[in-house]
């Protein structure tokens, strides 16, 4: 129980970190602390609070939250390493740890090299991957995933493909958004929903092209999400584990499009802009949850279910000799701690 709550806390803290990162770029505070990993010569955690003024408030807070999230993920990885019977889930923990460390290094490089666009875009893009990893870990260690009380549903190839395409596309859209953000193209088209009063911009430059690509991407994302939702409502109305994320996805999409419009109309108000960033990340991970659940039966074999639906199946932690209850046993892992 404590572990499950902890995984959710880690996923939530990653979302908070993305919001804090959004505030840094939205306020143009990325270089307000010139040094890294120190802050104005102070060790990060001993930097005086009364010195947190102007842009330093955003940048230094981001660093503190990032360090906290990094520590939380380190604990998560260790916890998985010691207690998780499924090798692929343990690997997710290691990957999340490596990703968050790489993320910290990218954050440092982008400060020391004065925010080069490719590094800043990579930093923003990897943040989404870290959020996906912590969310995936929270999902696959959740009671709903590990303790099945009902048979696994039959395969739905259409839903699988739809959720993969949708999630993949949302990530592409996030990348375009990160590119727009870090190339200062957020107001390249100053009106909304039209572009310079037209459906298609009457003139082009690289920034307008990036901005317009993000708008077209939003349209494609909306169509994909609506199609996925329609499929779930029509074919899987009784499956709460699919309907719930679809409803959340539709709500987040509505919020995200509204925030996108307000970002332009408020000339990138920093709160609106940052909410747009974190809501976009939430759309991505919600779609990922839906995709993973749509692939649930595929995980049966790697989870130790033997590849088929079983009643009352549960993965038990800290049981080296009988990792799966009600299903085939999983070989004991030499390194696993009871």
């Amino acid at each position: 129980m404590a572990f499950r709550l902890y995984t959710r806390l880690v996923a939530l803290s990653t979302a908070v970190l993305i919001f804090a990162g959004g505030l840094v770029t939205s306020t143009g505070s990325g270089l307000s602390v010139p040094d890294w990993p120190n802050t104005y010569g102070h060790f990060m955690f001993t930097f005086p609070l009364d010195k947190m003024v102007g842009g330093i408030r955003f940048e230094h807070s981001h660093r503190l939250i990032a360090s906290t999230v990094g520590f939380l993920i380190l604990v998560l990885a260790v916890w998985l390493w010691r207690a998780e019977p499924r090798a692929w889930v343990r690997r997710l923990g290691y990957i999340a740890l490596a990703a968050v460390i790489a993320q910290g290094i990218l954050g440092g490089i982008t400060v020391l090299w004065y925010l080069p666009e490719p590094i800043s875009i990579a930093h923003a893009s990897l943040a989404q991957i870290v959020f996906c990893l912590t969310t995936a870990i929270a999902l696959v260690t959740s009671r709903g995933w590990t303790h099945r009380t009902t048979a696994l549903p039959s395969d739905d190839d259409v839903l699988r493909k739809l959720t993969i395409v949708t999630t993949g596309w949302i990530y592409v859209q996030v990348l375009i958004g990160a590119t727009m953000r870090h190339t200062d193209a957020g107001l390249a088209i100053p009106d909304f929903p039209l572009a310079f009063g037209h459906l298609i911009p009457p003139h082009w430059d690289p920034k307008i092209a990036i901005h317009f690509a993000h708008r077209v991407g939003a349209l494609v994302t909306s169509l994909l999400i609506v199609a996925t939702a329609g499929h779930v409502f029509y074919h899987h109305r009784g499956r709460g584990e699919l309907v719930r994320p679809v409803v959340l996805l539709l709500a987040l999409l509505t919020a995200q499009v509204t925030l996108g419009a307000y970002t332009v109309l408020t000339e990138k108000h920093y709160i609106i802009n940052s909410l747009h960033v974190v809501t976009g990340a939430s759309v991505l991970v919600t779609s990922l949850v839906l995709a993973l659940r749509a692939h649930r039966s595929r995980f049966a074999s790697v989870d130790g279910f033997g590849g088929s639906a079983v009643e009352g199946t549960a993965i038990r932690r800290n049981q080296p000799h009988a990792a799966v209850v009600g299903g085939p046993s999983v070989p004991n892992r030499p390194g696993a701690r009871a």
Partner: protein
Amino acid sequence: MRSPFVRVITGCAVGLALVAGACSKEEPPPTQSAVVANPVDPATAGTITGVVKLDGKAPAAQSITMDSDPYCEKQPKNATESVVVGSDSTLQNVFVYVKDGLGNRVFPVPASAVVLDQKGCRYVPHVLGIQVGQTLEILSSDDTLHNVHAIPQQNREFNMAHQLAGIKHTHVFSTKEVMIPFKCDVHKWMNAFVGVLDHPFYAVTTGNGRFELKGLPPGTYTVEAWHEKLGTQTQTVTIGDKQTSDISFTFKS
């Protein structure tokens, strides 16, 4: 066999070491121009003087909100300095300089430093000129944190921390460049512009909009006036022996 956990930590440590190595690379110091005697004969040198004006309605001065820093909030309230218009529509903070016409002359680099201060949570002065190889002394008179972030296109970018009042850093530019924006990312309203030239014939207009370029050898010159919001204008001016030419620039608002 090492555990995956140890491998992750080791891999990241190696990555950090590589990054630290890459970050520790210092750019070579800019090469100083050879100091030569002033190639201008004072007996024949002339002067270009003039005034810069604004044609049209001056934008209303906007007061700066400095409440994101308690120290800055206590400072005298100031208006934005992007367009400062004096009486008779004269325009302040215009960088006027000889853009072309000096040929291959090489001018000595002044030994004195040019000072850019951070005072009252503003850069003082807002616009300034300096020669390649001359020392720029960046001070902080403020008892708060500032970062000094120069964003050149031709010179090396830098971002330095000024965490104490009285702190001083120096910098030398290696290449001529008009203009280099400076900003403080802590205090978004703080910005300045530095014009870097390989000769001493530049000036920044004051409250009366006037400028003076003294000690020019006789010849024909392209003179440019640069303003941060209103753009640039150029004029061709010819001066003879000991002659003074008076010109004017007018920017449209």
